[in-house]
């Protein structure tokens, strides 16, 4: 090979070397770039890693915080459970005490009732005798008042004699009512229809009503037979209707109803009077309590006694528009089958009633 060829070749090689060198340099640059990128990425990763560690640390703290709160809540829940048990215990204590109180009260009421019955028994025995003892001298006095009051020499004082006689009659009425009140014999009751009794009395009450220029309605419902003492129920009805009529002005309406309600037979007597004052309601039925000028104060006491001897109950509804007395009678077992039928009927009311 000649020098020129060698130079050419060398030149080729140099060119190749230069290219390769450029190539290498380029690659080297590239590598450096990559390296720099990798270093950057690495720094980035390291940074992210640090961030994650920070966050992990924060989460751990937060977790510890939550765990602590949970514990606190657990404690508080435990305290509440204890407090709740305490309250439950106190509640039970109060209930026990209330039960004792009720028992004690019931016992006291029972003893009072027995004592009262004993007294009534004694009073009942005495009452009949006393009634007799008083009525005899009363007969003498009344008779002579009538006899002397009719004589000419006392004609000018006849009104006084009449007054004396009426005062005696009033005293006698008190004895009569007291005797019926004091009687404690177990009264004879038999199975009968209350509506029948009402029906028999109705003409009497109606006549009274019309005389006073008042009105009356009688609404007998379908009711089963009850164990009743006819005389006593008659007395009860007359007393209550008389009171109802007296309470009303003219044209007032007295209403007498009978119906079944809640397993009981109810007799309702309603007037359109001015009602009973609250302070008097409490005293109703107390012997000798009356708001009437010429009342004996025994009419309602007798009613209450009659109601009691029939195992019934009196409820009173009173307002300025009027007063209603509700007397609820228990239904005897034999009659209660009839009540079932009747109450079924009530579910499908007869139209037009």
């Amino acid at each position: 090979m000649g020098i020129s060829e060698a130079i050419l070749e060398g030149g080729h090689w140099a060119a190749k070397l230069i290219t390769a060198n450029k190539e290498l340099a380029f690659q080297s640059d590239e590598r450096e770039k990559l390296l720099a990128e990798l270093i950057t990425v690495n720094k980035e990763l390291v940074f992210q890693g640090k961030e994650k560690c920070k966050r992990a640390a924060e989460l751990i703290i937060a977790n510890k915080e939550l765990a602590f709160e949970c514990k606190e809540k657990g404690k508080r829940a435990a305290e509440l459970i204890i407090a709740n048990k305490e309250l439950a215990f106190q509640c039970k204590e109060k209930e026990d005490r209330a039960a004792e109180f009720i028992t004690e009260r019931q016992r006291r009421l029972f003893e009072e009732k027995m004592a009262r019955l004993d007294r009534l028994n004694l009073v009942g025995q005495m009452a009949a005798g006393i009634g007799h003892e008083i009525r005899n001298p009363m007969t003498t006095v009344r008779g002579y008042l009538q006899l002397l009051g009719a004589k000419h020499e006392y004609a000018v004082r006849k009104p006084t004699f009449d007054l004396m006689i009426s005062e005696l009659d009033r005293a006698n009425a008190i004895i009569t009512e007291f005797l019926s009140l004091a009687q404690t014999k177990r009264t004879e009751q038999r199975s009968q229809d209350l509506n029948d009794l009402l029906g028999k009395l109705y003409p009497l009450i109606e006549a009274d009503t019309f005389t006073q220029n008042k009105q009356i309605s009688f609404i007998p419902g379908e009711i089963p037979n009850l164990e009743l003492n006819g005389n006593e129920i008659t007395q009860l009805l007359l007393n209550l209707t008389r009171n109802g009529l007296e309470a009303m002005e003219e044209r007032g309406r007295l209403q007498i109803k009978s119906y079944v309600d809640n397993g009981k037979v109810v007799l309702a007597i309603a007037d359109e009077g001015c009602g009973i004052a609250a302070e008097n309601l409490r005293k109703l039925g107390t012997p000798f309590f009356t708001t009437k000028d010429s009342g004996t104060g025994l009419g309602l006491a007798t009613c209450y006694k009659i109601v009691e001897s029939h195992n019934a109950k009196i409820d009173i509804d009173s307002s300025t528009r009027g007063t209603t007395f509700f007397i609820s009678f228990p239904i005897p077992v034999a009659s209660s089958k009839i009540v079932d039928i009747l109450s079924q009927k009530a579910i499908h009311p007869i139209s037009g009633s």
Partner: protein
Amino acid sequence: MGKILVADDQFGVRSLLVEVFREDQHDVETAENGAEALRLFIAFKPDLILLDMKMPVMNGLEALREIRKLDSQVAVIMMTAYGDIQTMETAKDLGILYYMSKPFDLFELRQRISDIFKRIAS
């Protein structure tokens, strides 16, 4: 007018009725108990007997029973301060014209007695 026997253990009632009946021109005798009433019924032969229920020795009901054994027709009016229904029913069965609850209305009694005597006379 007629003969009346008054049987009552109470002095006041007897005085009252004696005065009233004598005023009305009746012939009156009185008894203090049932036994005396029975005795006088036999001796005095009254047209009418006023008999009180509660009397000592023999009460009105027993006296009435005895009287009815002797005479089923004599007019009897029963008086009572008791108002015992049962006794009154028994007396009615034995036969009485009326019973009067004490204290009675004197004029009503007077009128009834006058009616009785009118019926007896006719």
